[in-house]
Each structure stands twice: as C-alpha cells, then as structure tokens.
C-alpha cells in the first residue's frame, strides 16, 4: 500500500477543499491515521474504496474514543539572549483543548490484501453537537458498529439507516463508555476492594 502521505496527497488532489490531516501516533506501533472533515467524509470514503490502487473494501472495525477537555502542555526550545549571551531555554506553553468524540475506522482491502488504513472522524464537541456523517452507505459492515458507537458513546451518525441502541435497552439514557459516565450505585460487598471499588466500599461501609 502507498504511504499515508501519498494517500493524503492523492485525496487532496481528488477533492480540492477537503481537509485531510495526518494524526501522528507517539505509541510504540506509531500507526498514523487520516483525519477527514465532515463535508468530504463520504467522498473520501468512496475514494478509498473505489481507487484501483487502494480498494479498501472492508471496514473491519469501527470504534469510538472519548476525549475529555484537557490542558495540553507543549515544550519547545527557544533561543534567547540573556545578559549578552545567547542561550537555549525551554518554554512551556499551555493550550486548552475542548473535548470531542472520535470515530475510528479500520479499513482493509480483501482484493489487494493490504491494510489497515485508519480513518478518523471527530465531532465538534461532546455535548450538543456530537455528530459525524455515517459511513454505512460506503461500508455496510459499519452499520452495527456505528450503532454500537452511538449506544456507548452517544455519537450521532447522520445518514445512518437505523440508528438505535444495540447493546443497552432503548429506555437507557446514559452513554456508559464515556469517561464521565456515572454508574448506578449498586455496590455490594467485595472481599478485596481496590481503586474505584475501594472508594465505593469506603462510602458504603464506614470503618
């Protein structure tokens, strides 16, 4: 398969105006991914599926990620002249990043036997605008998995043919995989509580 940079360049050439970004990955695997804007998501998805050199015809996995509001610290080195001598000092900048939800698609090609290509879509925020376009029209396999992402993360997929809860019951109001989910308080005795369970145990059984 082509490198991600080549794919990005070809996508940008095919759809002028599309914002395609490469998301770096600091992990050991270093697997980078493509972040696409909402307006061009379906076009880009079709391109990835139809392009003769890519033919990514199989969406093996769709999942959600919850990113809370965070303060991101960045360190950079700057040169400064202190008392007539030029020195390199480290400067830390802080940036507030509002939270968002993310959908991650893992794409493979059955025909050309390559992959994966990781495709990401991001919602505008975690509250009133948790929407992304659905890619089910392009990959039928995404249907149930997008429903699952909706069920557990509350990501609304515009254009999904049947967006209902799939694991939890319809009357359920929460999104249990979100990091700020508060579970019902039905603690019962545990012989060896630890971490969160220990905190709960302390609330229930005063020493």
């Amino acid at each position: 398969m082509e490198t991600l940079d080549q794919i990005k360049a070809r996508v940008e050439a095919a759809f002028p105006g599309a914002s395609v970004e490469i998301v770096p990955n600091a992990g050991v695997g270093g697997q980078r991914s493509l972040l696409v804007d909402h307006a061009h998501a379906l076009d880009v998805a079709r391109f990835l599926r139809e392009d003769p050199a890519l033919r990514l015809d199989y969406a093996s996995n769709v999942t959600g990620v919850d990113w809370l509001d965070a303060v991101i610290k960045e360190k950079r080195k700057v040169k400064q002249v202190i008392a007539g001598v030029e020195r390199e000092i480290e400067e830390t900048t802080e940036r507030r990043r509002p939270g968002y939800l993310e959908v991650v698609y893992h794409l493979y090609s059955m025909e050309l036997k390559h992959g994966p290509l990781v495709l990401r879509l991001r919602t505008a925020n975690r509250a009133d605008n948790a929407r992304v376009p659905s890619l089910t029209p392009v990959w039928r396999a995404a249907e149930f998995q997008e429903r699952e992402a909706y069920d557990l993360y509350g990501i609304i997929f515009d254009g999904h043919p049947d967006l209902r809860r799939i694991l939890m019951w319809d009357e359920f109001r929460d999104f249990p995989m979100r990091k700020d989910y508060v579970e019902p308080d039905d603690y019962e005795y545990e012989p060896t509580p630890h971490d969160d369970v220990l905190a709960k145990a302390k609330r229930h059984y005063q020493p």
Partner: protein
Amino acid sequence: MDEGLRSELSKQGVFTTTLEDLYNWGRKNSVWPLGFGLACCAIEMIAASMARWDLARFGAEVFRPSPRQADLMIVAGTVTKKMAPQVVRLYNQMPEPKYVIAMGACAISGGPFKQGYNVLKGIDRYLPVDVHIPGCPPRPEALLHAFMTLQRKIDEQALTGAQRPRHLVAEAPSEFPVPEFGAHDLVPPANPEIWQPPEVVRGE
C-alpha cells in the same frame, strides 16, 4: 415407623415407606431443566447433559424447550441487565414446584464482569436461588454436585408443617416481580423481599 421394624419387615420381603418419602423420591429423580443458557457456562451445562457426564443418571436428562414443561432453571452464564427481565419472566412461567441453580461466578455475583455497566450482580437479586455453584466456568462435575445437593434438599423437605416447601404454601408467591428498564438501571435494582445487600460484620 420404627427403623428396626422397617428393616425387619424388609428382610421378610415386605416393603414399607411413607407417603412423604415416596413423593420426594419421585420428585427428586425427575427434575426437568429448562433448556436455556446465557453465556460460556451453558457450554459446560450442555457437556454435563451429554454422554460423558450423563446427567440422565440423576433423572434430569430431559431439557425442556418451554418453561411450561420445566421445573428447574439452571441460570448458566452472565445475566446482562437487558436479559434479566426475560429470565425472571421465564421463571414466572414455570409451574410449581420449581427450583433455581445459579451456575458460575457470573450468575451468582456478576463474576468477572461485576463492575461492568450492563451486568446484573447475581440473579439472586430477583429470583430465589436454591443452589449456588462457584467457578468460571464450574466443571460438569460441579454441576452434578449441585444437582445432588438439590436432590438432597428436595428429599429432606417435609410436606407438612411450617417448613413445607413453597409450592405447598398457598399464600407463598410463585411469581416474582419482573424488573423494568429504567433510564439508568433496572427498576428496582433488586427485589428487597428476597435480597438484601450483605452485611459486613468486622471482628474485633
């Protein structure tokens, strides 16, 4: 009847028994489990009913596909909160006398998924469980042992008096309330009539 007299009579070829013994002997050797499983433990339950472990030796080989024809519910597997109302409903549809075996860590407490958002922390929150089997999964031998425990329990039941089994008490419930799907959890999260959170008593 006096034990000595009974054994003396049996030596003469006269068999004596009591109605209670006969009744319980019949009941305990003809338990019909409901053929349903919820997760991995069900595979062990199936194995126990097949030729190698052969549940038929205990008179319980007929797994019925309908709750109307069954009198033993083996809750074999993880009870999710979405499934719990259906499990209670199945139990309610079984005729008395009926028994429940909670098989495996999941069915007795939620097991490895206890802290999960969608797993019931034990079916005894909604149903009166007769025998609990620990294990993940319990081996078929453990299920056989639970079975024999249940048989012993049936055998020891007195048919009259205050200790008589539930199906002989007219005012005892044979159906239990089915929990409803709520906005955050099942409503109610447990049946307080039959389940209370365990009390922790610390020794000095």
